[in-house]
């Protein structure tokens, strides 16, 4: 994650010459309070990038609505004036999905920050998109409930952003991603109309538009309200930590736990460099000499957790764990998780910058890909620390580099691209939870054929005929598409 480099990510997008900026700004000020329209360059700098500052751009304006009807008015105006709109939540995304468009505006949803209703009898909450992920669970706790997806950024990231990215977290293995935990959405379309999908029931007839919207990276609509599913807090939780002498042994242990019919709430792996960095940073009590570390969380009733703890401990010992620690009390559990949850900043201290990848692979290939990543890193002259959602095969290699050295940026990006391509070759995908954004556009054609990309683009056009919603992100537009759909040039990436 570079803190110093600025690359104009959309420089390749052909400029649209005919936007009347003064008409746009005047229109925005008619539908929003004056302080909700930001145009001075010094202030706009705060929005020039998201959590991936390798890509920066300044928008024409940033608007900060506080109500859904203000969002609708802004979208209608931008539709009428044909102005690109980039929706943004908390800006913690890691794929430059919220990087501004130079000829467009950023619409910040952070001001729509109310929990509208918590409904414990139906175990749902209606929330606005700017509500942070963690605050939903905090509000639900009074009713003995929680919201399951918990990305590492959950203190800061917004639920609207989680919907845009189909965010995961460390508990996906058992509780699923955002798409499994949202039952309804209200969106404003690219044309400024209001679309309500789902509700408090469990299904509605017809194609699953809810699933289509979740993870669509702000390309199909702007979410203004979300109905999330709440789950009962488990009665009992235990965390087991195990150190291993080899990555392969840890990978086998993961397979053994799953094969035994146990579905942990979370199952995380870290490699030697990540273990040492996390231990230096957080003092979690991890075994520094281990080549790999597993954290396994089990939850359920007291009886269930006791039974599963005994089974998992035995499996880990059989798999050759050199160091096993079990925690059922809250303080020790938190200590064991602290190292994992602070792994990114911990690794960040090892190097001026780091670049976080997000490929997913079938779990059985974990030892192989970690060995290959190590080889590829050596060839690139860079170090890589690995943090891994082992239960669901989602890798987070953290490539260490120095962004003040252009050659290191180039090598880091090339190494990252190679890791993603290798993930696809092993039967996986280029992004498990961070999204394509601007960052992984080039790798989309590794994962998808031209026909598949063209179909995705046709779906985009169905929802956003003028291509004004977050243009240039998510789906690469192929040259052929220009003839095929007569698309506006601004979405073109060549």
């Amino acid at each position, binding site marked *: 994650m570079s803190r110093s480099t600025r690359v104009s990510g959309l420089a390749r997008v052909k400029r649209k010459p005919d936007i009347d900026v003064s008409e746009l700004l005047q229109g925005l000020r008619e539908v929003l309070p004056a302080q909700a329209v930001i145009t001075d360059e010094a202030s706009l700098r705060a929005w020039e990038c998201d959590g991936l500052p390798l890509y920066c751009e300044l928008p024409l304006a940033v608007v900060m609505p506080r109500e859904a009807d203000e969002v609708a008015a802004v979208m209608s105006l931008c539709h009428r004036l044909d102005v690109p709109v980039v929706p943004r939540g908390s800006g913690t995304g890691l794929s430059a999905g919220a990087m501004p468009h130079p000829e467009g505006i950023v619409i910040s949803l952070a001001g729509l920050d109310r929990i509208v209703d918590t409904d414990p*009898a139906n*175990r749902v909450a209606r929330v606005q998109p700017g509500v942070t992920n963690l605050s939903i669970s905090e509000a639900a706790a009074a*009713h*003995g409930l929680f919201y399951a997806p918990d990305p590492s950024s959950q203190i800061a990231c917004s639920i609207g952003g989680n919907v845009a990215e*189909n965010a*995961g977290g460390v508990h*996906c293995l058992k509780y*699923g991603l955002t*798409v*499994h935990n949202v039952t309804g959405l209200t969106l404003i*379309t690219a044309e400024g109309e*209001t*679309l*309500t999908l789902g*509700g*408090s*029931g*469990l*299904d*509605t*007839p*017809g*194609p*699953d*538009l809810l*699933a289509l919207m979740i*993870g669509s990276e702000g390309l*199909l609509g702007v979410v203004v309200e979300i109905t999330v599913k709440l789950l*009962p*807090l488990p*009665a009992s939780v235990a965390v087991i930590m195990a150190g291993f002498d080899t990555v392969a042994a840890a990978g086998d242990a993961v*397979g053994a736990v*799953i094969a035994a*019919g146990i*579905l942990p709430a979370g199952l995380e792996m870290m490699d030697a460099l990540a273990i040492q960095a996390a231990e230096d940073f957080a003092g979690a009590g991890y075994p520094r000499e281990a080549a790999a570390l597993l954290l396994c969380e089990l939850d*359920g*009733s007291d*009886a*269930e957790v006791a*039974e599963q703890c005994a089974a998992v401990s035995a499996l880990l010992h059989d798999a050759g764990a050199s160091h096993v620690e079990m925690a059922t009390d809250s303080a020790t559990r938190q200590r064991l998780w602290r190292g994992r949850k602070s792994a990114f900043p911990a690794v960040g201290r090892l190097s001026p910058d780091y670049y976080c990848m997000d490929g*997913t692979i*079938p*779990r059985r290939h974990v030892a192989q890909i970690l060995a290959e990543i190590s080889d590829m890193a050596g060839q690139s002259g860079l170090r890589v620390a690995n943090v891994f959602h082992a239960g*669901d*095969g989602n890798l987070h290699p953290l490539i260490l580099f120095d962004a003040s050295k252009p050659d290191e940026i180039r090598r880091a990006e090339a190494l990252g691209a190679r890791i993603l391509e290798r993930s696809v070759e092993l039967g*996986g995908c*280029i992004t*498990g*939870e961070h999204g*394509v954004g601007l960052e992984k556009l080039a790798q*989309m054609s590794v994962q*998808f*054929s031209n026909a598949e990309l063209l*179909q995705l683009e*046709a*779906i985009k*056009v*169905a929802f956003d005929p003028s291509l004004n919603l977050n243009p240039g992100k*998510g*789906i690469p537009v192929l040259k052929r598409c220009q003839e095929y759909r007569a698309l506006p040039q601004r979405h073109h990436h060549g």
Partner: protein
Amino acid sequence: MADCSSELRDAVLEAIAVQSPLRIAGAGSKAGYFGREIEGTPLDVTAHCGITDYQPDELVISARAGTPIAQIQAALAGQDQMLPAECPLFGGAATLGGSVACNASGPGRPWRGALRDSILGLGLINGRGEILRYGGQVMKNVAGYDVSRLQAGAQGTLGVITDVTLRVVPKPAREITLAYTLPAAAALARMVTLAGLPGPVSGACWIGNTLYLRASGTAAGVEDFRRRQGGDLVSDKAPWKALDTLDNAPFSGTAPLWRLSVAPSSPLSGAEPDMIDWGGALRFFAGGHDPVAMQDAALAAGGRAQLWRGGDRHSDVNGPMSSVEKKLQQRLKEALDPGGIFNPGRLFSDG
């Protein structure tokens, strides 16, 4: 057990060439259920069948669309695994493709998810005759729009599903059913209270003046639940198999059935349902009911009503839709099926 995808594709290309609509058909187990009755040249997918990959340690199975659900369940059972959605068999013959197209999910839906929740990826022939793949074999995959899950509930209107990769789960070590004689309102109240508490509940259904609770999990967890909840331990699994066998009320016979998918705690009002499932979130009403009254009741309960079986299946069966949603649904249909050849009119009378 053959790969017939190229034959299916040829049939689609032919239909495109002659501009003649196709009526995609699996085993026909859900004929007369879910969608509207439509015309079209039948496109039989059942020969395109077989499990193509099963990795028990990855919790992943892939099969061709014509594969019977029963065959998939048998393969999984051999490894002590199962489909979390427990797709109903509809008399026995239900296929994977048809189940996905209808998002047909069983009694554990509120706790284990719908069939759409376990879809990891699929192959699709679109209305240009292209074979496309979305998703994959891994749990987490956010590259591109979720075209795979989009097919769940589309009833074949957006393309021909050729194969599906699903997430599977370990079979619980122990599963029991407890029964309580209770009227509907008291049963519903009990379901709603239990659903808010942690526990091993995996089914909660009211039928024939009896509340049935199913608990699944470790032996100790299930035993603990039984101790706390009392009730009669019954060996009868009929409530959980109701849509497999279709031989008990309200599914036996051919009477029209309304299906209301609603907020689980919404109160019972008006006619008493013939069956309450999904912990209150799914309610079936048998016999002739006023369509407007059914839609109003569903709307008031935060959900939607479908004329799920029987009745007039040439009219709209899925209830009203907002003009914005209708416009987007039509554009989406055009994006995937520009010639309108796949199951036209299956979901809505005007599209």
